[in-house]
């Protein structure tokens, strides 16, 4: 357990600079972009008020309506959601690089990692834990940023032009955030559990490639594709052969398939790491 934790801390530390940069970028793009958008909106409002002889903000709101936080963020797109998508892409890339970086360069760290007097699965668990921590950390970061953004919105807009929205309501109605931060904690566990399963499938693909090289590239791709097919199977059953599954049946089937894929990926990875991996 101790060695596993040390490896987790090491994996977290190795990526911290890029991670911090992603968090900073998200903050700057969202907060900074919101600030600029609010400022430009106020200029626009003042211009219209002058042109239409509206004597105060209340009169303006009466005629043109207030502007909610939601619509304000829509105005500033893609600067609100683009950093989130960039973070997702970066982490997805790192799912592969967290392994491959150990092999690259003139000092392949993988030798040392594989020679540590600890179960090789601890290397696997540490990398898996690190990825999940990175993902959840960004989710938490976004949850901290939302109230900050809303506070900026409330502080810059006159009360007559602002609409009170809760963070929850905003997330629930936003096409991207409603998926990343689902409605209930049950769904959160299910979605990120599925994410964890996906990472284990991708890790297995990497290990297949690292164990068998050229044949391994094909093997890794086949494994990933087969896993995807397995997860899509319930839907294909519905659409293809017309045997309609009821929603709860589809859900149950997906949970079972997901659990099987997780166990299979872990089992195959363990076998490869201990018996087949080659440097």
């Amino acid at each position: 357990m101790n060695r596993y934790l040390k490896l987790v801390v090491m994996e977290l530390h190795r990526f911290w600079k890029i991670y911090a940069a992603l968090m900073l970028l998200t903050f700057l793009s969202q907060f900074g972009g919101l600030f600029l958008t609010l400022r430009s909106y106020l200029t626009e409002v003042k211009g219209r008020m002058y042109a239409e002889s509206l004597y105060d903000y209340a009169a303006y709101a009466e005629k043109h309506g207030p502007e909610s936080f939601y619509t304000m963020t829509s105005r500033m797109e893609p600067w609100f959601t683009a950093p989130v998508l960039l973070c997702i892409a970066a982490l997805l890339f790192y799912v592969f690089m967290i392994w491959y970086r150990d092999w690259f360069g003139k000092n392949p760290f993988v030798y040392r990692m594989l020679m540590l007097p600890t179960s090789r699965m601890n290397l696997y668990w540490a990398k898996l834990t690190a990825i999940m921590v990175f993902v959840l950390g960004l989710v938490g970061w976004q949850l901290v940023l939302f109230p900050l953004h809303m506070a900026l919105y409330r502080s810059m807009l006159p009360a007559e032009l602002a609409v009170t929205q809760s963070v929850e309501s905003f997330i629930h109605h936003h096409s991207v955030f409603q998926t990343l931060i689902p409605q209930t904690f049950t769904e959160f566990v299910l979605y990120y559990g599925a994410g964890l399963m996906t990472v284990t499938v991708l890790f297995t693909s990497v290990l297949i490639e690292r164990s068998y090289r050229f044949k391994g590239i094909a093997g890794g791709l086949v494994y990933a594709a087969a896993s995807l097919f397995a997860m899509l199977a319930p839907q294909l059953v519905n659409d293809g052969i017309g045997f309609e599954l009821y929603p709860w049946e589809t859900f149950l089937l997906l949970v079972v398939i997901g659990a099987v894929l997780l166990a299979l990926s872990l089992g195959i990875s363990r076998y490869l790491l201990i018996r087949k991996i080659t440097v």
Partner: protein
Amino acid sequence: MKRKRYWASGLLAAFIILSIGIYYIQAASSHLPQFRLAALEGNEAEAEGLVLSAYYNHDALGEQAEITASGTRYESERPFLDRVGDLEGWMGSVQPIGRLTLQYPRFMRGRAFAEYLDDEAWVIRAELEPEYGVDLLKPSYRFRIDMLDKKTGKSRSFRADLPESKFDSKSIIDLQRFGTTIKAAVQYEVIGMDGRRRESEIRIYDIDLNEEKITGSAKVDFGTSAGDGREIRIFRVFEYHWTKPSDSLALEVSVMDVSDLESKDGTSGGIANQNATAVRQPVMAEHRLVIYHYGTGEVKQTSLPLSLPDASQNLFRTGPVVLWTRSDGQALDLKGYRASDAALAFEKKLTARVLGAESIGQTAIGPDRLYLALTASGTPEVAAVDPADGHLAFRGAVTIDGVDENEKKRLLSSIGVSSISVRS
């Protein structure tokens, strides 16, 4: 390892747990206001099963809600497993199908969109299946009948070939059983390239359950047909319990005048045509209620008022009564016809004022009530009318408890009811 790294990692882990944990705890503990439907007039029991599909617009984003006598259920507050397991809700508002799916999930699997009969002994499903031969554009059709014996739980299926016809559009609009004979009402139409209905007819087929084939057929003759400049539109009159047995079929027949619809470029008007310079809508020339009796083959009919441009019109059936309604938002005209002989049983006018409201909105039919959505002083209300005589049986209003008057007013003005339905 440097202590600093351990601390930083621990901090990150704590941050994750706190940020996500606090968010979900806070989300679970905050609740949207609980509106409910309270009785103003009539029997409180009338509100049972009534569901107002509404929109709570409190923050420019809005929430979908369902308001009943016992409270409000918001879509965004529903637990996940509740949503996944809601088979009835998944079937949408096709009420009897939802109920049947809950009761007989195996039988109902995968074949929801068909015509059903749910009587005391059987659940019977009928569909028209195409059979493709040499000419893929002209398949031949047959009935596919599935039957579930409610007592034994066993099901059986068979197919019965439909005779060839010139009609390119066919659909089953009603299904009844009399002893060992199934009667299937099939609507045929010839629809032209321009969307015009060139011909329409209703044919009743007798399907023998023992012989598993069609043993007879009869056309429903209501004494009028399509022709030059005339289009016939036929609809089965909607009823809540459309799967329950009945000894008659109620049809709404409209004869439309489609002459002089050609616009300057020679194509038919009536459908959205970018090149058309003047698109004339078809005009209703005749409007009838036609009752076909399955037992005798008799057809009874009566004229219905023609539709008006600024009023919404509906025709409903609740067992022995067919109700015609027309509303312009301020008054509802009501005519009740007997399903046995299509004779007018009563006529009534309900004004918004009489109903204590500012406006009359949507109408909906329940098992034995006509429902009206009303608005009074910005508050959504519901009225339930007895279809037998047009009398007001119940009036209810959306309310909220535990808040002061100003807050109540503010909250109620944020609610908009989009439809009324009944969950029996």
